[in-house]
């Protein structure tokens, strides 16, 4: 007998998670299953802390948001990992006590510009896209 055609699952669009589908940050801080919902914090990446101010002219660093806690939209649900997520993961490895791992798929990203000297004293201005997380999937 001809098997009924297999119902194909509609292909899940690889879209960034929509912030409204999740328990917002104003819900109780313990979600339905008693887990610690992740909360949003500001992370300042300081070029001063990295010891780079002898060649970086501006800025002194930049601040972005990060999530801390068990989040509903982990980073790996979103194919294009942001530069900031990679940077945060690396800073986490250097300062595990102060900076948590990157955990959340961002929904709003902006660029940051860095002005610096190269080894031949030329001055270079470089714009880094998707470096600063302005909003993330959990909130």
């Amino acid at each position, binding site marked *: 007998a001809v098997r009924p055609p297999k119902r194909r699952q509609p292909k899940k669009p690889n879209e960034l998670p929509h912030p409204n589908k999740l328990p917002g940050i104003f819900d109780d801080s313990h979600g339905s299953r008693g887990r610690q919902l992740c909360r949003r914090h500001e992370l300042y990446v300081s070029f001063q802390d*990295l010891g*780079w101010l*002898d*060649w970086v*002219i*501006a*800025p002194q660093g930049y601040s972005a948001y990060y999530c801390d806690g*068990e*989040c509903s939209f*982990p*980073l*790996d649900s979103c*194919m*294009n*990992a942001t*530069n900031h*997520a*990679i*940077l945060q*993961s*690396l*800073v986490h*490895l*250097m300062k*595990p*006590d102060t900076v*948590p*791992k*990157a*955990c*959340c798929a961002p929904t709003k990203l902006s660029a940051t*510009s*860095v*002005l*610096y*000297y*190269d*080894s*031949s*004293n*030329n*001055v*270079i*201005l*470089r*714009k*880094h*896209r998707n470096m600063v997380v302005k909003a993330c999937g959990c909130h």
Partner: protein
Amino acid sequence: GGPGPRPPPSCPQRLLGARERRDMQREILAVLGLPGRPRPRAPPAAARLPASAPLFMLDLYHAMAGDDDEDAGPLERRLGRADLVMSFVNMVERDRALDHQEPHWKEFHFDLTQIPAGEAVTAAEFRIYKEPSIHLLNMTLHVSMFEVVQEHSNRESDLFFLDLQTLRAGDEGWLVLDVTAASDRWLLNRNKDLGLRLCVETEDGHSVDPGLAGLLGRQAPRSRQPFMVTFFRASPSPTRVPR
């Protein structure tokens, strides 16, 4: 890998050793698009005075940082398309000055090896400061810029016309000459320096020494020395997965 739940606080967080920290910094530099940690030659104390290129680039940085404003001028629009702006300050200047017969000109040679590979040039400009000329009062001057394509020992060099600006002998300020057309050849001859030749003529076609016209070269104060600025559009960097 993915961000599983954080290890319980009891789990000892191992801090990194010096070599691992250096590896991490190299990783962060790679995210910032840098091959390695630049080590600019520390300028001698006298050279710490503000120089023309960093001053100009700092203005660009503020313009780029605030690039949302609608009334963007030509420079801001040029900036909006650029991912990378590079100012070149290391140049060799050659003067065919007064003691030679006409025509007079100034040549500036830039080291092209510092131009990053894989970037598309969207615009390039040569900036030179002009003071009011005390020798050519109230004259109109034509300033032309050429690329020195090929030099010959026994005859005049092959030149490629780039830009022409007309100004008054009494004018003062930064003169900006568009050298974007020269960038087509850069990628072909990266190992050769880029030679730019500057000529000044009066209305009746007489060649004038650029120094007499008030154009400042390498001898000028640091904040008024000539330099070149190049705007690049980066090729889309491949997405990276966090390790």
